[in-house]
């Protein structure tokens, strides 16, 4: 038995799009196997397949073979995975706050002995053996190096401890042979993370294999024995850690090189060199995407890309500047101070934004295309109104004419300007959002995740539109995107944000390695010092 787990030639489609293509993952007993990849590389899908999650079967299953300890198995539900000795430490804690640690660890696997009632009414009513349960829990807690009393309620524990309780619960399961850690260090402090890595090593030493999902290269180097890198649903390769390096891993993770890169034509005139937007020490309190002290200068007339992994704060920047989430710091637009937390002032100053949350913030889904396009201009600039006596009411004619022009200019595919925007395809919805921003005649445009959830053809059109706006009208654009390829194809410079700060400012043709390192929070200079 060489491998505890083999997942061979896994293919998975969601509808038309392939999310996994011929991926193979082999894990030896007692090793820590890192699974590395950007957002959307296919890590989660692979793990969902391993655990037989309902979402996989609901979307037509997968192709390929899973072997546990050399035996081919079919896993149809998380319960079956558990029977095979596969456990999961979740990223979001699945603990009951009102229960003690012991109760949480032993939930649904309680040790009990029969009593009078249970003999009559079945084993559901057996008495709990608290002593034995506490003993078991203590053992598991000790093995993860947590000294806290097993009877403590989970509710008040620090986040780090909850993570350990979660791990202790998985270890306590009898016959666990493989544990999956899904980004376990994401919520931990540095010292907690270090301890976690130690615990993982000691678990591995006891013979349990670990799949360690992360995008922090440092931790992979520190803890893992083997690393498998996924990219865009395909397998890039597996390496033993001692045979690889940080740079190689970063390259593998990003590594498209110039393949498929469609760099747009270089600009004719050089930039004026003036600063359009100056951001100093910006802190944005946006849940899941908080910015923690970011400094940035945007040049007039450029397209600046902002990249980085999900949850690192790249989306927080435009939302903070536009006043949509509580923010602190100083922002200057064309040498004028911009008040924060004031969307109206931001819009009046000539800023516009195309939101990443198209359906939530970007559109009134039940309203028509024309109303969506004209709304901001009507509210901020008072356009498209006509007088009826003392009242000023919406001019249906002006709104319609403008909408028609925009539909023509941006090539929005629709039946009429009166069609509800919610019934449009993703790409056309995005164009409606852009049309609304343009109706404001902005001096500065934020575009946040413009290609999220739209098909490839529409992506290219949206990007083309942005380039056209920049080249023809000299519009300064800041584009936030999770797709590095997009950024590299149209941006003048690319800022990588990690942990709420700027981790590096790179050129579109910088090597993959630099992008990979910056994304995992290692600034290029830091690496050079090593």
């Amino acid at each position: 038995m060489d491998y505890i787990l083999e997942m061979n030639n896994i293919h998975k489609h969601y509808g038309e799009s392939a999310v996994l293509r011929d991926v193979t993952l082999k894990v030896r007993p007692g090793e820590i196997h890192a699974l590395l990849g950007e957002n959307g590389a296919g890590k989660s899908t692979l793990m969902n397949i391993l655990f037989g999650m309902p979402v996989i079967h609901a979307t037509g299953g997968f192709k390929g073979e899973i072997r546990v300890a050399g035996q081919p198995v079919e896993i149809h539900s998380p319960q079956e995975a558990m029977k095979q000795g596969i456990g999961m430490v979740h990223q979001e804690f699945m603990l009951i706050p009102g229960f003690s640690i012991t109760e949480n660890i032993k939930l649904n696997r309680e040790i009990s002995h029969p009593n009078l009632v249970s003999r009559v009414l079945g084993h559901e009513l057996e008495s709990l053996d608290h002593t034995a349960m506490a003993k078991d829990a203590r053992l598991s807690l000790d093995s993860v190096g947590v000294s806290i009393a097993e009877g403590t309620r989970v509710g008040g524990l620090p986040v780090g401890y909850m993570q350990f309780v979660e791990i202790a619960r998985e270890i306590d399961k009898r016959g666990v042979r493989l544990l999956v850690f899904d980004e376990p260090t994401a919520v931990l402090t540095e010292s907690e993370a270090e301890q976690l890595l130690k615990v993982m090593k000691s678990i591995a030493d006891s013979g349990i294999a670990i799949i360690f999902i992360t995008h922090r290269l440092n931790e992979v180097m520190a803890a893992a024995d083997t690393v498998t890198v996924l990219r865009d649903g395909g397998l890039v390769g597996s390496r033993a850690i001692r045979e690889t390096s940080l740079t190689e891993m970063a390259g593998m993770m990003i590594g498209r090189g110039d393949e498929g890169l469609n760099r747009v034509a270089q600009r004719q005139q050089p930039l004026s060199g003036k600063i359009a937007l100056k951001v100093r020490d910006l802190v944005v309190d946006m849940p899941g995407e908080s910015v923690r002290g970011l400094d940035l200068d945007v040049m007039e007339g450029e397209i600046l890309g902002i990249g980085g992994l999900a949850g690192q704060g790249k989306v927080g920047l435009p939302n903070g500047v536009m006043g949509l989430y509580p923010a602190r710091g100083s922002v200057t637009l064309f040498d004028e101070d911009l008040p924060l937390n004031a969307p109206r002032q931001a819009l009046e100053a000539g800023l516009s934004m195309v939101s990443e949350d198209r359906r939530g913030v970007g559109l009134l889904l039940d309203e028509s295309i024309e109303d969506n396009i004209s709304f901001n201009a009507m509210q901020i600039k008072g356009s498209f109104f006509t007088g009826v006596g003392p009242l000023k009411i919406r001019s249906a004619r002006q709104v319609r004419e403008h909408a028609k022009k925009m539909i023509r200019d941006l090539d929005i595919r629709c039946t009429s300007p009166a069609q509800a925007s919610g019934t449009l395809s993703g790409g056309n919805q995005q164009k409606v959002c852009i049309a609304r921003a343009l109706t404001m005649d902005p001096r500065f445009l934020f575009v946040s995740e413009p290609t999220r959830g739209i098909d490839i053809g529409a992506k290219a059109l949206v990007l083309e539109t942005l380039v056209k706006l920049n080249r023809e009208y000299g519009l300064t654009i800041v584009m936030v995107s999770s797709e590095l390829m997009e950024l590299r194809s149209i941006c003048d410079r690319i800022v990588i944000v990690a942990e709420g700060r700027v981790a590096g400012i790179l050129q579109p043709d910088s090597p993959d390695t630099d992008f990979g390192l910056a994304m995992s929070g290692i600034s290029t200079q830091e690496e050079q010092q090593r």
Partner: protein
Amino acid sequence: MKQIKTQWAAAILLAVLALSLLATGIWGFAQRGQEQTQAALLKMRNYAVLRTAAGAIVNDLALNAKREARAYADANGYSRNQRSAYADEQEQLARKAAEEKYFGSTKSLDRTDLNLSIEALETALTGFTRLETQEKAAYAEVWREEQKAKAAKAAEQETASAEDGALSEDALVVSAEEKVDYSGFVPSAQLAALGETLTPAYDAMYDVLETSLPDLQPAMRAQLREPLIAVVKGGESDFQTEYDHYAKTGADTIYVGGERTRMFIARQATNLVVLAAGTLVIALTVFYYKPLKRSLGMPRLVISFFFLLLLVAAALYNINVPGMMSTVLWRTGMYGVLALAMLPGIQSGISLNMGMTVGIIAGLISTLVALEMNMTGWGAFLFSVIGGIILALPIGILYGKLLNRLQGSEMTVSTYVGFSFVSLFCIAWMLLPFKNPKLTWALGSGLRTMHNMSDSFGQLLDNFLSFTVLGVKVPTGLLMFFLLCCLLMWLFSRSRSGLAMNAAGANHRFAEAAGVNVNLMRIIGTTISTVIAAVGIIVYSQSFGFMQLYNGPKQMGFVAASAILIGGATVTRAKVSHVIIGTFLFQGVLALGIQVANAAIAEGGLSEVMRILISNGIILYALTQSGGESRG
């Protein structure tokens, strides 16, 4: 594709059914005029007369048999139980034998002398019947007025509990149609004299009957006078009533086979035509199902359908349909403005403003002030409306601020605010310093529960420019006022603030991103809603004719919410058209539903149960439908 074919097939089948129903109905109408049918009807009349007379003989024989059986039993020393059982048995046997003997024969139906004598009696009856109908109608009018006054007075003088003080206008609608109690009816001297002149004609007819039924006893001449006259009197009215009248005695059984079917179709001709119209509407609905569903939405389709169904049922039950339509129009105008008050609430994102009662109370106060000062007519109305608006403005702003502090559960909060405001004012109505004796309790201080508006501005709008067309009374002023309010609201919703308010309600994050002050928009929406509610209750009161204090306004929010939801609004999205369609459909279904239910099940108190069931059921149904439906 397959679905479309089924749809077509169903539509065509239904259309064919409708057409055949229509054809049958028309054929039935044509038959009514035929000589053959008229002869058959005469035959039925003869049968009815003979049958009624024979009924007396049968009863007589049966009674005799019973008497004899008792005597026999006594003679043979039967026990008490045995005696009564024996008597009953003998009576049954005798009745059966007599019925066979007297009811079975139909051979004497064609007798010319009988025909002629009945005809003579009928002619003699004409004048009498006409006068009697007139006198009875006059009596009924007086009786109804008395009942209405009694009901209002009872409510006005309800001192014990304000809880029961609320008088439902449905109760008024129903009582107007209630069966008139004729026990107090006294015929005039002229009528009595006319009645005397009937005797020769009756005697002549009875003589003919005696030759046909030789077993008639002399005593029965007087005894049978009333029932026989009642049978013959039926001849006055149209075919349908006449047929039903004779059929009551079993006259429809004298025919068999084709003849019977023919008579039946002739009788049902009107109903067949009504059913044909109903089926045709169903066929058209099935045919245009897709576009109808898209433009109206499923709930509206179902409810409109129900409305039509009720109309057909009303026609079948012989309910006065134009009268019902008048009621529906009246109630639409009466409740319309109140339902409109829901609109700005929904548009600004506070969902259903159940707390619109705060505005209602502002409207009530200003009306009370107008009444206190003995104002009347248009002056009183305008004073109340303007005063209501001025009062409602600050209340609405404060209420809006309260709702802003409790975001996320506005519907619960507003319901409780509404209820507690009503309760607070139950105390206030007792304490407010109104002095006009027309408003206060006869003994002690405090305002009465019900206030009759007839001497101030009751029905002012209703009667303004009102006209009657095809029996439907159109309350022009009322409807115009309602539509004017709708127009103003529509204009506002096209203005900058109106658009911003709508966006704030539809998607507050979108609105925020566009620089809209969402909280301010919510306050504006709430305030407008409150102001419209104040105007709404004034319109309602003048139209209803009574103003209700204390717990009267408590349920208004629910009525308004039902109306706008039924019109196609969801708790997050609403348009002016939803208010108009919704109020019409809701009040239409309600008014017709109560009438039809009353006709179908003659039980008192059902109407109120129906009203509650329908209005709350509709809220529930509309809430379950508020998922997506309205898109597009």
